[in-house]
């Protein structure tokens, strides 16, 4: 039985759809109830719904063999996991955003508000830019509006929230999408199962790409 940690929410539901198409359905999971664990013995899978931020913890600690995690989480926390596949789902961008008329004054420290201090820190370190990182847990867009920071580093999907708050994308840090991750120890014992799952998911992604074209 392969234990799979799915992120709760729209992305998890989308990826479950892909897993179902790849031959890993679980009818119990499709029922509207509040359970968190679902099993399909015939397909050899057990799914868990977990908070998106916690997927890598479940996989790293071996509670799940594989899981679906955003690239943002992988970059921010660098868990020791195998990253087996880009699922090309939940596509968005990690961006620097700020007021449209923002001009970086390099004679002073740049104040950056973010939920992702490591990603933001690495990005500015690469540019040798001296920054003060302000770690926030939500409503990041408020920070430049209230003068708490000069810019923000955050995930941008459509840019609508930024626009409605008078902000705009200034620079792209990196693209983000959902990734299939595996626990390296579990991989050593279940390599065939995990490789098969990876291959089948890869075929689903390819077929979906071809349909879109």
């Amino acid at each position, binding site marked *: 039985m392969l234990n799979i940690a799915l992120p709760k929410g729209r992305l998890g539901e989308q990826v479950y759809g892909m897993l179902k198409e790849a031959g890993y359905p679980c009818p119990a999971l499709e029922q509207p109830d509040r359970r968190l664990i679902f099993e399909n013995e015939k397909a050899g899978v057990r799914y868990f719904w977990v908070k998106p931020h916690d997927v890598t*913890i479940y996989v*790293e*600690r*071996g509670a799940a063999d594989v899981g679906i995690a955003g690239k943002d989480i992988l970059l921010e926390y660098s868990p*020791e*996991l*195998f*990253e*087996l*596949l*880009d699922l090309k789902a939940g596509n968005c961008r990690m961006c620097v955003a700020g007021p449209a008329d923002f001009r970086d004054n390099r004679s002073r420290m740049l104040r950056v508000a973010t939920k992702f201090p490591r990603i933001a820190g690495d990005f500015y370190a690469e540019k040798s830019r001296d920054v003060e990182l302000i770690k926030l847990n939500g409503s990041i867009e408020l920070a430049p509006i209230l003068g708490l920071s000069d810019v923000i580093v955050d995930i941008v999907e459509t840019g609508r929230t930024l626009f409605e708050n008078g902000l705009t994308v200034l620079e792209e840090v990196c693209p983000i999408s959902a990734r299939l991750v595996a*626990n*390296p*120890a*579990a*991989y*050593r*014992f279940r*390599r065939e199962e995990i490789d098969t799952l990876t291959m089948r998911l890869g075929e689903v992604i390819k077929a979906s790409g071809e349909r879109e074209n």
Partner: protein
Amino acid sequence: MANQILQQSGEQTEEERLSPEELLLFRLRKLYRQYGYRPYRMSKFEKYELYAGNKDFLVSDRIITFNDTNGELLALKPDVTLSIVKSAQFHVNRVERLYYQENVYRPSGSAHQFREIMQCGLECIGDLDCYGLFEVLFLADESLRAVSEESVLSFSHLGILKSLFHVLDAGDTQQEQLLSLIAARNLHELSALFAARGWEDRLFQDVKALLAVSCTLSHLPGNLEALGLSWLGEGILQELKILAKLSSRTDDRARFDFSVINDIHYYNGLVFQGFVRGISEKFLSGGRYDSLLERMDRKGAAVGFAVYLGLLEQLRQPEETFEADVLLLYDEKTDPEALLDAEKALHAEGKSVSAQRSMAGRYAQVLDLREEACNA
């Protein structure tokens, strides 16, 4: 099967009962001594400068430091290998075979808090040849088997990576990127990196093929030859052929896994990691580290590994635990001599006893010596 070591520790008599960690240590000591390894003991502290100059070699660069009474900065040792290498002597045609069991102090777990970690391992240092190299690989596998048959020793050869870096003419930054992507088996970003750097696709296909190889050591030279890696250094294949011959005369369990990578600034040649079913991270790690010797101005070559005994905790199942077999319940009216006699009688039956004046706690049996109960 995964709990073999736990079950066996529980089967012993009271006098012989050892914790799983103690039982494993007992077995490993016996195994290492059989192969001529001598125990190596060291102080809990080392001069901080030993670690400060070699932080990349350590599992974590965070070290507990303190000032000695003479003002010298000392560290609670986070590692054992550096101390052993520091005192190693080189002699032609001779290797030093040493094993250790030590507590080390470094951050661990997802919270990265400092912990005391029980570790054992061995080092083979000196005029090392392929036989010594294979012996250590073999002992690493035997160390895993001492825990459970359901274990895997994965190995790779860093010479393959270095040959790849050479043919790609990869600089330091690109080498770091390649290492982290190969270690994560991240083919999609590797493919993007090759395309972005303008590296030949056939070389990406070689890396992809190497990551797909999963075979025992005895089959590895044949499989590498079948891949036709034109850029692979001839010396690597020769070394692997000698090791493969030796491996074919044993159980030949170790499996090639190109994603096994240790720090290339210290390690070279054979590297390996051990896994035990039921433990979520590597239980054993090691390899050949001539480069560390070179950095520490020591002659010769070295290979060794560490076994992370504390991880055995992950194999434990929740169990019914009692504070003692029998709770002897008494009150102020109970005759103390009767209480003592009752306790002695229970001890004679081989039971552990706790005398208490209240019912708190969990016990397999309760014997009530309170006056009310005796009169009832």
